[in-house]
Every structure is written in C-alpha cells, then in structure tokens.
C-alpha cells in the first residue's frame, strides 16, 4: 500500500521536520525534493499528493515550480507558506492555483490540519486509484477492474 505523500520544497528543512513529527501517527510520507525536476518526478509516481512550498528565498524559482506543478498535475493540492505578508505574491500564488496560503498570521501548526483534510479522504490510495475509483463509480465493473492501480 502506498502512503499519501507530502512534498516539501524549502531551503532549511524546518517545515518538513515539523510535518514529519506531526504526521507520524498518520503515516504520510514526507519528501523533500531538491528542485523542480525532482518534484515533478515524485508527482509522476502518483499517490494523492500535497505540495508545501515555502516562498521568499527565490521567488521566481518557487513560483515557477508552483505554476508547473499546478499546470501538469492539477489534482495536486499546493499550500504556499511565507514568512512575510505580501498581498501581491499571495494574489499571484492564488492565480497560479494555490490551494491555500499560510502567512505568519496563521500558526504554522495549523498547516498540519489543513493538509490532513486533503490527504485523508482516500487514505493510502494511489492517485490513479483515486480517480478510477471515484470516476467509475460503484458499479461491479469498477470494483472488478482494479481497486488500486497504485499497487499495479
């Protein structure tokens, strides 16, 4: 069985550490891809995924990653975390498809609960399985045709 994966893109590893600590009982897999290509490769492997993107260090690179992920993997939920409140950057992130934006006025610990809502609807199911299961409906055909493509 494949665990839901949380991809964390940041430079200091703090968010990943926090999420790893808090998600232990939930069995999410927290990954820290270094760079755009590594991130896309992980997403291509499937699994219900959440991208946590810390922005502020290199805005162009970070927003390009967000744009690319949301364009190629529209089913991915993207949470943008920033240390500074800038409504222009927030507007851009929303426009690029961010699921939610976490500014300093929201406690970081809340991020874990935000993510949980997006990963625990179909715990342990692969992305393809989620779509096939959801899309083919409860007909006997759907059930027989493969319950979890992620396991194939």
């Amino acid at each position, binding site marked *: 069985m494949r665990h839901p994966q949380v991809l964390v893109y940041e430079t200091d590893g703090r968010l990943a550490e926090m999420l790893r600590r808090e998600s232990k009982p939930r069995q999410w897999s927290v990954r820290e891809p270094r760079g755009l*290509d590594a991130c*896309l490769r992980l997403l*291509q492997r499937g699994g219900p995924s959440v991208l946590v993107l810390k922005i502020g260090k290199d*805005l*162009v690179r970070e*927003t*390009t990653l967000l*744009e*690319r992920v949301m*364009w*190629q993997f*529209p*089913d991915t*939920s993207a949470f943008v975390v920033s240390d500074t*409140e800038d*409504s*222009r950057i*927030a*507007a*851009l992130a*929303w*426009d*690029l*498809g961010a*699921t*939610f*934006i976490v*500014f300093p*006025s*929201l406690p970081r610990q809340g991020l874990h*609960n*935000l993510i949980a*809502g*997006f990963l625990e*609807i179909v715990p342990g199911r692969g*992305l*393809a399985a989620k*779509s*096939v299961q*959801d*899309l*083919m*409906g409860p007909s006997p*055909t*759907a059930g*027989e*045709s*493969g319950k979890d*493509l992620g396991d*194939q």
Partner: protein
Amino acid sequence: MTGADGSFESASLPLPPSASEPGAQNTPDFRWQALFARSSDPIFVLNRRRRILFVNQAWEKLTGIGATEARGLACIRRTPIVQDPWDVVIRALCCPPPEVLKGQPGRTRRLVPGTKTAWRWWEFDFLPFRDSDGLLCVLGKIAAPSEREQVETPPLPEKLAALRSGVEQRHSLDRLAGNSPAMRRVLEQVRLASESRFPVLIRGERGAGKSWVARTIHYQRSGNPGPFVALDCTRLPASALAAVLFDHYSLRGQADQGTRYLREPGNLPRDAQARLCDLMGASSAASEPRIMAGCDVDPADEAGTSRLLEELHCALSTLVIEVPPLRERQTDMPTLVDRLLERANTGREQPVIGLTPEAWEFVRAYSWPGNLRELYSALQTACLHAPNDRLDVCHFPAALRLAVRLDETPDASKELALPLDHLLEQAERRLILLALRKAQGNRSRAAEILSIWRPRLLRRMEALKIQETG
C-alpha cells in the same frame, strides 16, 4: 481605402486633417479619419493582413511612434519582452487575438514591458469588420490607465508577471471553444458572464471543467481582474474559508479582490452560507470579490435537503452555466486530446504528438465518467509508458482498457463466435510485440525471450505485418 485584398500596399490613405484645421468639421464628404483623429482615445485600424492602416494622434502620443512610421507595420503574435525594440513591442501589443480575426469583437489586457521595472497594463478593444471575402479590417482602441491608477497596485517583477500572464492566456475564450452545440452554448454564456460581476453558478459532473470555465470568465474581465481564488469547501476548514471569504485574508490591500470560486458551497457551514449571501449583495463593488460556485450535484437538490441555504442558492443562480460531460462532446475530442497532450508533454524531451488509430478507437469507445480530469490522467499515464511519439492502446491504464472490453462484451444470450485462428494470431501478435518491447526492439533478443529462432520470428512478424519494434 484598400485594394481588393485589403492590403496596405495598394491603399491610398491620406492623413486626416487635425481637429483644429479650418473646415474639418464642415467638410461635405464624411471622412472617418477626421472623426477618429479627434478622439482622445488612442485608435488604430488594421487591414486583414494585420498591417496598420491608420493611427490617430492619441495613439501617436501614447506610443511615441509617428503615423507615417506606423503605417504598413505588420502586427505580430508574440509576447513582448524588455529586449524587444519598441516598434516590435507595439506591433505585438496591437495584434488582435484569434477570435477577432475570425470576426468576433474582442477585449484583452496586455502587459507593456518597461525599460526598468515599470511594467504596466494596457487594455485593448478590437472591433472587426467583414466583407464578402471575410475579414476587411479591424478597429482597435487602447485604454492606458494613468500612472497614478497603475501605482495603486504596483506591478509584479517582470518574470512573475509573465507567469501570471501565461495563466491568463491559457484561459482565453478560444481555448474553451468547442464544436459541440453544448460547448457553443457554454461559450456564449461565458461571454455574457464576463461582461458583468454577477454571481455565476457552474454545474457539471466531476472533472467536466467547471473550474476552468470559472477562470475563463474571470480572466475575460477588462482591466486588472484581481486574483482568482479557488476554495475547496469540502476539504478546507471552515475557519480558513471564512478568513479568505470575509476578511480578505492574504489579500488585504489589493485594490480589486477578484473572484472567489467555491467548490461545492453546500459544504460550507450554515452561518458562513448566510454571511456569504450578505457579501454577495455587496459584491458588485470592486472592493468586494465576485462570487462563483461550482457544483457536482444539483444545487436545487441540496437546497431541498437544506444542505444549501435556499437564499444562497437563489443568490448564486443569477447565471447558471451547465458544463457538458465529455461523453456529450465527442466532436470536440480531437481538439481536447491535442490540448491535453500539449499539457502532458510539458518538459518532455520527446513529446507525444498523437494517437494511433487503435488508440483513437479506444478513446472514443470509453465513456469517460470522470470527464476531462480522467482523460488527462489517462493521457498522462499513457505518455509515461509510450516509447515513441504515438500513444497506443496498450499505453493506457489497464482499468480503462478492461472497462472498454467489458462494455464491448456481447450479451450472454447471443451466440459467441470463437474464431480460433484469429484469436491465436492475436495472441501471437501480442506476445511478439511484448517480447520486442522487452528487448527494446532487438529482434535477436526478442527471439530468445520467445524461445524461438530469429528467422522464425522474422517470418511470423512478416506474416502478422508487425513492423514496429518499439
């Protein structure tokens, strides 16, 4: 004014008299140039080849390019960049969008690169005129907000603005268009919705493209439309939703609050639904966001079961757009597959350019209950498995192939034909193809895998007309 082909080269176009010229107002023959010349709005006219025929003084003042210099310049389709010479920037900005060249009026907002960081937006209105041969000319008008207006929301740095601009361009009307009657109706409704700030309710099956339709409406608005904020009412906590909806969380200070698109508003808590009704009463003002909502299930049913407040249902239903499911868009399938492949190909070294005839048959045979989302997901998976630039049936997810086969299974009551030779040939063909794929096209290795001699493999390949080695 122009030659038979509308080209500038054969045109004889005298410069219009200036507004102050004596007799300009009382000239017995009406001269359209004189009328436009006096307009304080920058105006230009293009011929059918997109060459500039006429510009007025306001246009000259805005662009800094003289009328004599401008005449005959061809407008080109490209996104201008800082490094472009100024006349190239202007030619790119004044180029009408595709729907205008097809005869429909159009409005667009374009980013004008500045020499330093001062990028700014200009708004363009295009009005096409046609004759019996098609497009005759296009009248264009530019609205350039004053520097003060632009300063209120300082523009993003160039590269970030280009990212946003890319998203906006992806959601143009022509990207939404389809040949099916249902999509043509949607297109008309989107056009109508984009001319107002009324709430819009978008209904359709899961994955049918409701969010895409909402974005398209949002980005058709003239001027800076503000951000498009999509909120998932099923999965985001109520407090987070309330912060973005009612307190402008993360967007305080934005002059235009843009659009809030709510997925499944029936999942909002009832008090939030009531507050939303109040907000929608005030959302005609730019300081409040425009509300759009998307529903998989019929909102009338939800209102009936009290999940969705009746008042909210009424408030949202000012304009209802029904997005058709994919199975009702068979005629749009080639265009949709092309566009989705283009998307799935992003970043691929060897892009997939199409489908084999068998794959097309498969795509048409499957009912796509998950609509566009499922089609994209399947194409994405297939692209990962495709060794060359064409997708075949075997590259698609096994569950979908099985579903098609089950659909194709004849009724038990009918007598089942079992042509043994044909079935054996099919099985042999598949095994050979599988071996060739495993051997990466190496026929000697494939023969080894099949435990036969290479000459036999070659004979069978010839007999079964197997040419591909991939």
